[in-house]
C-alpha cells in the first residue's frame, strides 16, 4: 500500500494544477477536486480564478457555476420567456455551457450530478461547442471551457459521473490539506506559457512511457495518455522549456495517471496481494510488455510509474475490493441529481388545456403556439404590440407516472445451501434485468449471513453492472434474518423517497438464529425478525417471501404473515420460476397492504 503523501506536497501539486489549468483549460478538460467545503478548497478556487483571469487580462473571463441538479434548459439554453414576451417574437437564451465559453465551468457538488446532466457537459468537452435543439431553436455555439468539478463525496462510491471524470485530466484530493500546509505558490507567467504551448517539442519517449505506464496501472481509456501528455506539455510551457523534460512527465504522472490507477505496478513489493483489476476493464488482462525499443524509454517509464504510484490514493486496494463487490467505481453517483433532472413526476406526454394552479406546470411553448395564430387580431383590438395571451390559450404540461418499480432481493446466504440460493437469486436478477428496461425497473440485492446484512448490488438497471457485482458473492454462516429485513426496509424506504415503488423479494427458510447485534440465540433472533417484519408491514411495502426450505416452513409463513407479504413456498427455487413468480406478483396492483 502506498503511504499517504505529505499534505504540503499535495498542496504544492494542487497549485501546479491550478496553473496548468490556466495555461490549457480546453486541452486538459479540467480538474476534479475532491474535498469538503473548507479552507483548502476555497483557497484553491480563489487561486484558480485569479490565475485563469490573469491569463487573459484583456477580456473579463467568464466563470459559470452550476448546481448538480442543473436542468437541460439551464445547460443548453432555449426559449427566453422575458425577451420573447417583450419583443413579441421568440428569443433564444444562452445556456450555461455557451456562457462558459473561453472560461471555466464550475460544477458544485458534482458527486450528486446524474448521468443525464453530465451528458451535455461531456458532449461540449468533446466537441468544443454546444448544440441546442430545443423549444423551436436550433443553435450551435462555441463552448470551449475548462471544468472544475467540486466533489464533496465522502463514501467511496459517491463520485461525479464517470463519463465526466474521464474527461478531466487532473484529479486532486485536498481532503487532508489544512491551512498549515498551504504555502503561496510562486508567481508564474501564464500568458507566455499559453503562447508557447504548441511550440513545446514532444519527444516520442514521453508518449511511449506515458502510454506504457497507463497500461501498467490498469488505466485503459485512450483519453488518459492524451490528457497526461497535454498536462506535461503545459508544465513544460509553464517552466519556459522548449521540450518536455522528465520533471514535466513526472508531474503529469502524479496529477493524471496516479489518481486513476486501478492496479499497482507489478514490480511493487505487494505484487502477490494485488487483486486482479475489476473485470470491467480487463477481461483478458496481461501485464503489458513495455515497448522495449529503447532503454531510455524504459527508464523514463519507471520514473513515471514511480511518480504515479506516489499519487495513488492510500487505501486503493481496499477501495478496489469494495468496488468489485459494490459495482464499478462511480457509477452509482448522482442519484439525487438524476431524479431532479428527469422529474419523477413521470415523463412528459404532451400538454393539455387547463387552469394555472399552484401544482400545474405551464407548457410555455405550447401556450405560445396556441396563442400565436390570433396575435394580429388580438393586437389590433387591444392596440398593443405585446403578445396577447388569453385564458383559453393556457396549456399545461402532462406527465405520465412512470410506475417504476425497484425489486429488492433479500437473500439468505447462510449455511450450506447458500451458494445454490445465491446462484438462483443471481439468475433471477439477471433474467429480470434482461427485460427490465421495457418495464423501467431497477433491481437491488441484499444478502444476509454471518453477523449481518450487506447491500451487494445497489439499485440498478444495468445488466452489465449487475453481472459484475454478482460475480463474487460470499456465502455461509448464521442466519441474521432481522438484520436482513431491517436493511431491506431501509433500502425500500430510500427507493420510495426517490419516487419509485419498492418490491421486496425475500428468499429464506425463515429460521433466524443470529440477532441484530451479531450474537447467536434462536429465540431472540426469531423475535427480532418478527419485529422487523412488522416494521415492513407498517410501511406497507409490497413483499413476497419465497420459502426455499425442503417442505413449507411454518416460521417462514409466520414471517410472511407478519409482513403482510405474499407467501410462496418454492422448495426448488430456480431462476426461471423465481423471476416468473416475481413478475406475476409485482404486476399486481395496487400494493398489498395489511390483511
Amino acid at each position: 500500500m502506498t503511504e499517504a503523501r505529505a499534505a504540503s506536497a499535495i498542496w504544492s501539486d494542487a497549485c501546479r494544477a491550478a496553473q496548468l489549468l490556466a495555461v490549457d483549460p480546453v486541452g486538459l478538460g479540467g480538474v476534479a477536486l475532491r474535498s469538503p467545503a473548507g479552507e483548502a478548497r476555497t483557497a484553491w478556487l480563489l487561486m484558480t480564478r485569479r490565475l485563469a483571469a490573469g491569463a487573459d487580462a484583456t477580456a473579463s473571463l467568464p466563470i459559470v457555476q452550476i448546481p448538480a441538479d442543473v436542468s437541460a434548459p439551464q445547460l443548453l439554453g432555449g426559449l427566453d420567456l422575458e425577451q420573447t414576451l417583450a419583443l413579441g417574437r421568440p428569443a433564444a437564451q444562452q445556456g450555461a455551457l455557451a456562457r462558459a465559453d473561453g472560461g471555466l465551468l464550475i460544477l458544485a457538488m458534482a458527486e450528486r450530478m446524474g448521468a443525464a446532466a453530465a451528458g451535455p457537459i461531456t458532449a461540449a468537452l468533446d466537441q468544443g461547442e454546444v448544440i441546442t435543439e430545443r423549444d423551436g431553436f436550433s443553435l450551435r455555439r462555441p463552448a470551449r471551457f475548462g471544468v472544475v468539478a467540486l466533489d464533496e463525496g465522502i463514501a467511496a462510491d459517491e463520485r461525479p459521473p464517470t463519463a465526466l471524470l474521464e474527461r478531466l485530466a487532473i484529479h486532486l484530493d485536498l481532503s487532508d490539506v489544512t491551512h498549515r500546509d498551504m504555502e503561496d505558490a510562486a508567481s508564474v507567467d501564464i500568458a507566455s506559457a499559453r503562447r508557447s504551448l504548441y511550440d513545446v517539442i514532444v519527444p516520442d519517449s514521453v508518449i511511449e512511457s506515458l502510454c506504457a505506464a497507463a497500461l501498467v496501472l490498469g488505466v485503459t481509456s485512450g483519453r488518459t495518455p492524451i490528457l497526461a501528455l497535454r498536462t506535461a506539455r503545459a508544465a513544460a510551457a509553464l517552466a519556459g522549456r522548449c521540450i518536455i523534460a522528465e520533471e514535466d512527465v513526472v508531474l503529469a504522472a502524479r496529477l493524471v495517471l496516479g489518481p486513476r490507477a486501478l492496479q499497482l505496478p507489478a514490480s511493487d513489493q505487494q505484487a502477490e496481494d494485488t487483486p486482479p483489476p475489476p473485470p470491467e476493464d480487463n477481461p483478458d488482462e496481461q501485464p503489458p510488455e513495455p515497448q522495449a525499443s529503447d532503454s531510455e524509454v524504459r527508464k523514463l517509464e519507471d520514473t513515471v510509474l514511480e511518480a504515479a504510484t506516489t499519487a495513488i490514493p492510500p487505501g486503493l486496494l481496499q477501495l478496489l475490493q469494495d468496488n468489485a463487490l459494490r459495482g464499478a467505481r462511480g457509477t452509482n453517483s448522482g442519484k439525487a441529481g438524476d431524479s431532479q433532472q428527469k422529474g419523477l413526476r413521470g415523463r412528459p406526454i404532451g400538454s393539455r388545456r387547463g387552469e394555472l394552479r399552484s401544482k400545474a406546470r405551464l407548457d410555455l411553448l405550447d401556450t405560445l403556439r396556441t396563442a400565436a395564430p390570433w396575435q394580429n387580431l388580438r393586437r389590433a383590438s387591444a392596440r398593443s404590440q405585446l403578445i396577447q395571451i388569453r385564458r383559453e390559450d393556457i396549456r399545461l404540461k402532462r406527465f405520465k407516472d412512470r410506475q417504476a418499480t425497484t425489486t429488492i432481493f433479500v437473500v439468505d446466504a447462510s449455511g450450506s445451501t447458500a451458494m445454490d440460493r445465491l446462484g438462483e437469486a443471481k439468475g433471477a436478477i439477471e433474467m429480470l434485468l434482461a427485460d427490465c428496461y421495457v418495464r423501467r425497473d431497477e433491481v437491488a440485492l441484499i444478502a444476509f449471513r454471518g453477523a449481518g446484512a450487506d447491500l451487494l448490488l445497489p439499485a440498478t438497471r444495468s445488466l452489465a453492472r449487475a453481472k459484475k457485482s454478482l460475480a463474487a458473492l460470499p456465502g455461509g454462516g448464521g442466519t441474521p434474518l432481522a438484520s436482513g429485513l431491517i436493511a431491506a426496509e431501509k433500502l425500500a424506504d430510500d427507493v420510495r423517497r426517490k419516487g419509485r415503488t419498492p418490491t421486496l423479494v425475500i428468499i429464506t427458510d425463515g429460521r433466524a438464529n443470529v440477532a441484530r447485534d451479531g450474537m447467536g440465540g434462536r429465540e431472540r433472533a426469531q423475535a427480532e425478525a418478527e419485529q422487523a417484519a412488522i416494521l415492513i408491514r407498517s410501511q406497507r411495502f409490497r413483499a413476497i417471501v419465497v420459502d426455499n426450505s425442503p417442505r413449507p416452513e411454518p416460521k417462514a409463513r409466520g414471517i410472511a404473515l407478519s409482513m403482510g407479504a405474499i407467501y410462496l413456498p418454492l422448495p426448488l427455487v430456480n431462476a426461471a420460476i423465481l423471476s416468473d413468480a416475481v413478475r406475476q406478483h409485482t404486476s399486481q396492483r395496487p400494493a398489498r397492504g395489511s390483511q
Partner: protein
Amino acid sequence: MAITFPFSAIVGQDEMKRALIIAAIDPTIGGVLIFGDRGTGKSTAVRALANLLPPIRTVEGCSYNCDPAKPAGLCKACNDTQAIAPRSLKTREAPAPVVDLPLGATEDRVAGALDIERALVHSEKAFEPGLLARANRGFLYIDEVNLLEDHLVDLLLDVAASGENVIEREGLSIRHPARFVLIGSGNPEEGELRPQLLDRFGLSVDVVTTKDVSQRVEAVKRREAFDRDPEGFIASHQAADAKIRKRITTARGKLPMIAIADDIREAVAGLCVSLGTDGLRGEMTLLRAARALAAYDGKREVQLAQIKAIAPAALRHRLRRNPLDDTGSGVRVERAMAEVLAP
C-alpha cells in the same frame, strides 16, 4: 464546418470502421450501434465518417433533401412543383447530411413543429422541419443513445421503421420522407438499451480499448499532431480519406451486381438457426452487409470471408440473452461460425 479528426487516421478499431463503411455503402442495412468502453474513439469515428460520404444530389431549397432522381419519394412541396412543371426542379450537389441528435433535444425540434417565429410575428401557420427532416437521406447520430429520453426513442423507432415522419399537432398535418441511417453510440455501464431499439440497428459493434502499447502510442502521437496543427494533419490524411471515399462510391455502384451463391445463403441460414436468432432480420442484414463488404473489397460475389468478417456485428445483438451464460455474444457468434461454417 467543425474541424474533425480524419477517418483514416484512427488507429485500430477495425470492426467499428468496417461497420461504418458498410452502412455508408448500403443505407438499407439499418444503421450501426457502437457500444463499448470510454475513450475508444466512438464519436470521433462517426464524426469523421461525415467527411467520407459521397455528396448527394438534392432539390434546391428543399428542407427534406429530396432526391430528384426518385420521383416516388419526393416531399409534398417538390411533388407539387414536379406535377405542375415536370423537370422544373432545380438540383444541386450537397454533402450527405450527418445530423447530431444532441442530448436534451426536445421533441418539437426532432420531429418538427409549428414555426413559432412566423406564427408570432406574421401569424402564419408554417411548419418548421426538425432534425428528422434534415437527416433524410443521410445519417442521424445519437451519442449516448442509452441516455436518450424514452419518448424520443419511441418517436425515432416509429420513423425509422416507416421511413416517414408524420406530424399531427398544433393544427398541422404533415408527412415527409425521413429515411436515415441511425448511428448510436454509448457505454453499457450507464444503462442498457431497450431491446426493441437494439433490434432496429442492423449492425452492432462492441468496442474495447486496445491493450497494445504500440497502437496506443501511435494513437496518442496522431492526436498530438492533430492538436498541434489540425489543418496540416487533415491535409496529410486527405489522400487516404479520399481513397476510402472513392472505394465507397465504387462499391455503391457495384452493389447490385454482386452475386450471392446458394451455398453461401445456406451457410448463413445454418448459422442463424444454430444461434437461434429471432426472425429473418439477422439473416437479411448479414447477407446485405456481406454483399456491401464484398463490393468494398472489389469482389464479384460474396465469399465466406466476408460472411465471417461481418457475422459478429450483424448477429451479436440478436441473440437471446442467456443470463446464466456469461460469455459475450460476440464469442457465441464466433463459436457458432467455427462449427457451422467449417469448410
